[in-house]
């Protein structure tokens, strides 16, 4: 065996030395090695080699040699001057190819704009609850209920558990119990003001870090104490100096104001306008067992002692849950959740305040990348395609001594410059769509998306990352070019990379196609829902919320109006909402039935059709006696013909009611729900809405008259009247939101893919001018040439449609039937129509450029060579 110096040591030494000249040092090492092999053993020699490498690696000799290399003219290290030079050259290049630069910047700006929304949203949401001083030690307790096969997770937990934790668990510092008020409306002289309220323990203010302005948080210890936020105090009293005043809630209870606090920051998941003392809540009348299984609106927050381990608390409550629920029918388990993970954490039911759905966030992120990635890809695609144009420049640079690294940095700088420019554009779009975006989100009002320095920094980082992602591929491509081939313009742009690019382009068009198709389908679904035949008359009908007005007085006043043809009363709006009740069908059996209370005029006003029997009677009402049912009700009770049903008696809410009429099925609920068992009942005390058939006259005029009439009634409430059609429209406003989002994202996706195609077309037509010239000389017509140039793109679009159509159709059908019980079916025409739109848009993009080349004079083209 030949004795060789240890290779690993040598490699390490070489690596550490970088490009420094260490030939003589390596020689010395070898010489010593062979010397030691002769005089000592191989092992000694190897050990000595290692020792020497170690000693040299940290010696001044090596440091100095490395430093010398760095200032040589062939160095590849960044200095400010070189960087400045890169920027200058990049700027000149971008300026020279203005058209392509614009296309690239525009595409990237569009691609980044949505991501900016995502980043700003994320950066805001991630600051939730970070202002609490004790945030590291605050936990909330969530519960999971096992009901039959269903598992439901709630943010709530029984307050009995809070008492136990405080009494038995050692690691706890403070426990706050919170009850979210069902409805809390404050009475004032002018009107009633709804205000969000929590009933809380006095520890609330010391566990959480909210700022008091005046007063003492201890007022919450006494019964009927209240702390108001600044804005509510000003809303109610127009002043902040209100300590000692009393407020009265709608249910008659009064509270004494003992303190004023600052409004809580926007990024607090607890969201309230006033705090009421917990002791105000009367003792629960439920049995202890029921309190453990029935705890709506009860929340527990725990502040642990310094150094206490959260796992201990989890173990403790696990133990309690196991013991407590062992003999109860309901099974519940508890788990702790850290304060800062509430907002973005698991999707739980009945959140106390603001809750962002993690799954929604993920979806949004996916959409953002679906928009951003094509934009990056387009940039890379166009840049590489133009390699031919710039190959001479690169070849020359390499011949003059430019190393790969320098070319790489040159192109990366170019990309970074263009992304920074497009960041400006993206920011502009961001500012334009910000307000709209906030209005779409449910929790948008508490959202603060204003630009901060932190956010600008994040945007900038994002732009740089995008630039790197988009630029690294073309930059590597250019850096690897062989200078000889590059100078001879013999670069092979057709190959495996071409296939990848084609596939990616097809993916983009597939995405665009998907958006177009969903847009068409959703808008059709929206129109379908609004124009649906609900089985009753809803045009020219005005619905008025009665509030506290007596129905009879209302009728007397409003029938005088010329526009009003008839007035009918109901407990809810037909086709929008209804309530449910239980009907006894046997000794132990009962079925759930939807119901609406209505007066005799209602059925005729709404034009519902009788199959048998008759309407409620108009003369003097003597308590509830009759019901009018629908076909489904008969089916559920096994009654074959409508006639048979008449006279049958059912027990409803402790009363025996007789069927006097049977109606044809109609849609009493929105189209999300199937038509089920339903009946009308008559009970004037339940009436909440007046439904008026009106003549189709000037709407504005009519509403002014109605409002004037309303003002004469003994009420101080505002007139709440609307066309029935508008109410129905509102019930389907989800589609409008969906259309808006899909439409916006679709426009972005389509624009990006068309921009990408435009860039490619402009490029190919520029490089194929010579070919076109020769073809024309040999007798090709304008049409021949135009077809030749655009054939590839049309083919790609066709492939895209072929791929995307079945996938989109599948998803769209799933979503449509998921949202709504009565939905449209996706038809072939939808697909064809969206395919046509995509093709049309694509052809419009390329036609101008193609014809410019196709109609050019071959003599001019060929002469330039």
């Amino acid at each position, binding site marked *: 065996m030949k004795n060789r*110096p240890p290779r690993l040591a040598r490699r390490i030494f070489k690596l550490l030395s970088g490009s420094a000249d260490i*030939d*003589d*040092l*390596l*020689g*010395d*090492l*070898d*010489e*010593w090695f*062979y*010397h030691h092999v002769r005089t000592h053993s191989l092992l000694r020699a190897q050990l000595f080699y290692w*020792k*020497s490498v*170690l*000693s*040299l*690696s*940290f*010696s*001044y*000799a*090596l440091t*100095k*040699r490395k430093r010398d290399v760095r200032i040589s003219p062939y160095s590849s290290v960044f200095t400010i001057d070189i960087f400045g030079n890169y920027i200058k050259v990049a700027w000149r290049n971008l300026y020279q190819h203005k058209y392509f630069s614009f296309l690239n910047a525009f595409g990237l700006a569009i691609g980044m704009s949505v991501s900016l929304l995502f980043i700003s949203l994320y950066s805001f949401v991630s600051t939730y609850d970070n202002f609490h001083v004790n945030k590291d030690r605050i936990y909330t307790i969530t519960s999971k209920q096992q009901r039959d096969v269903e598992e439901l997770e709630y943010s709530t937990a029984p307050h009995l558990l809070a008492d136990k934790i405080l009494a038995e668990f050692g690691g706890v510092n403070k426990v706050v119990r919170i009850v979210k008020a069902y409805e809390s409306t404050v009475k004032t002289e002018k009107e009633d003001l709804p205000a969000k309220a929590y009933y809380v323990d006095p520890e609330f203010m010391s566990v959480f870090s909210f700022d008091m302005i005046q007063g003492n948080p201890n007022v919450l210890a006494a019964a009927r104490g209240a702390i108001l936020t600044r804005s509510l105090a000003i809303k109610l009293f127009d002043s902040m100096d209100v300590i000692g005043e009393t407020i009265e809630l709608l249910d008659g209870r009064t509270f004494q104001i003992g303190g004023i606090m600052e409004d809580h920051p926007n990024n607090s998941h607890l969201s309230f306008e006033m705090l009421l003392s917990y002791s105000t809540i009367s003792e629960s009348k439920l049995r202890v067992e029921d309190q453990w299984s029935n705890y709506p609106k009860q929340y527990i927050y725990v502040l642990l002692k310094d150094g206490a381990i959260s796992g201990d608390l989890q173990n403790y409550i696990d133990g309690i849950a196991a013991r407590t629920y062992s003999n109860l029918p309901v099974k519940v388990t508890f788990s702790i959740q850290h304060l800062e993970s509430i907002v973005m954490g698991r999707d739980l039911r009945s959140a106390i305040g603001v809750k962002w759905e993690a799954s929604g966030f993920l979806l949004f992120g996916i959409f953002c990348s679906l928009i951003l990635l094509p934009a990056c890809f387009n940039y890379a695609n166009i840049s590489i395609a133009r390699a031919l144009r710039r190959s001479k420049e690169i070849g020359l640079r390499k011949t003059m001594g430019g190393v790969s690294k320098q070319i790489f940095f040159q192109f990366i700088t170019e990309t970074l410059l263009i992304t920074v420019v497009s960041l400006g554009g993206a920011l502009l779009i961001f500012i334009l769509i910000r307000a709209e975006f906030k209005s779409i989100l449910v929790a948008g009002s508490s959202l603060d998306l204003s630009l901060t320095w932190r956010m600008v920094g994040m945007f900038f980082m994002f732009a740089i990352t995008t630039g790197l992602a988009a630029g690294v591929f073309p930059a590597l491509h250019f850096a690897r070019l062989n200078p000889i081939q590059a100078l001879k313009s013999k670069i092979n742009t057709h190959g495996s990379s071409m296939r990848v690019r084609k596939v990616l382009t097809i993916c983009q068009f597939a995405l665009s196609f998907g958006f177009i198709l969903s847009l068409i389908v959703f808008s059709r679904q929206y129109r379908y829902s609004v124009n649906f035949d609900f089985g009753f008359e809803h045009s020219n009908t005005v619905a008025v919320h009665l509030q506290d007005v007596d129905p009879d007085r209302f009728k007397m006043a409003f029938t005088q109006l010329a526009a009003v043809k008839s007035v009918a009363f109901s407990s809810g709006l037909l086709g929008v909402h209804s309530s449910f009740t239980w009907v006894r069908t046997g000794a132990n059996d009962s079925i759930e039935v939807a119901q609406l209370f209505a007066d005799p005029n209602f059925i005729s006003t709404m034009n519902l059709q009788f199959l048998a029997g008759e309407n409620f009677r108009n003369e003097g009402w003597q308590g509830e006696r009759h019901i009018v049912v629908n076909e489904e009700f008969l089916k559920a009770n096994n009654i074959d013909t409508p006639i048979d049903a008449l006279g049958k008696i059912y027990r409803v809410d402790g009363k025996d009611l007789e069927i006097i009429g049977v109606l044809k099925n109609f849609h009493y609920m929105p189209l999300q729900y199937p038509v089920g068992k339903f009946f009308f009942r008559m009970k004037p005390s339940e009436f909440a809405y007046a439904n008026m058939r009106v003549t189709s006259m000037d709407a504005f005029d009519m509403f002014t008259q109605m409002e004037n009439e309303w003002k004469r009634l003994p009420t101080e409430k505002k007139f709440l009247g609307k066309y029935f059609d508008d109410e129905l429209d509102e019930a389907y406003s989800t589609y409008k939101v969906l259309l808006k989002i899909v439409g916006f994202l679709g426009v972005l996706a389509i624009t990006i893919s068309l921009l990408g195609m435009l860039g490619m077309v402009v490029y190919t037509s520029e490089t194929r001018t010579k070919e076109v010239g020769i073809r024309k000389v040999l007798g090709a017509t304008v049409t021949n040439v135009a077809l030749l140039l655009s054939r590839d793109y049309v083919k790609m679009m066709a492939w895209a449609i072929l791929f995307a159509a079945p996938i989109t159709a599948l998803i769209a059908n799933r979503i449509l039937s998921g949202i709504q019980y009565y939905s449209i079916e996706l038809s072939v025409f939808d697909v064809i129509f969206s395919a046509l739109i995509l093709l049309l848009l694509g052809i419009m993009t390329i036609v101008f450029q193609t014809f410019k080349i196709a109609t050019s004079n071959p003599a001019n083209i060929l002469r330039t060579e």
Partner: protein
Amino acid sequence: MKPYLGEFEELVLLTVAAVFPEAYGVGIQKDIEKRCNRSISIGALHSTITRLEEKGFLKSWTGGATTERGGRSKRFYELTQAGKSAVTETKSLRDELWSISKIKPALK
């Protein structure tokens, strides 16, 4: 100010002058180790040589690749004029001190 020469620097300079023309890394190191009977690390030696080169006391050139060194070249060193005067000055300083000192050099 006169350039300061450390003890090891002086030793290296004198050895380079002594083993010339075979003054390259291994040659210098072997000579010092043999003559002074002390083991020096290769890193320390090359660092000192580098410093002396920086101060302008040494100049170097490459050459003399042998198979023994894996075909790698040697870097030979030679004292510059400044180097020679630096060691001379140190010597004269020492001589002067010796002559006025009360120690008699022990004769073997």
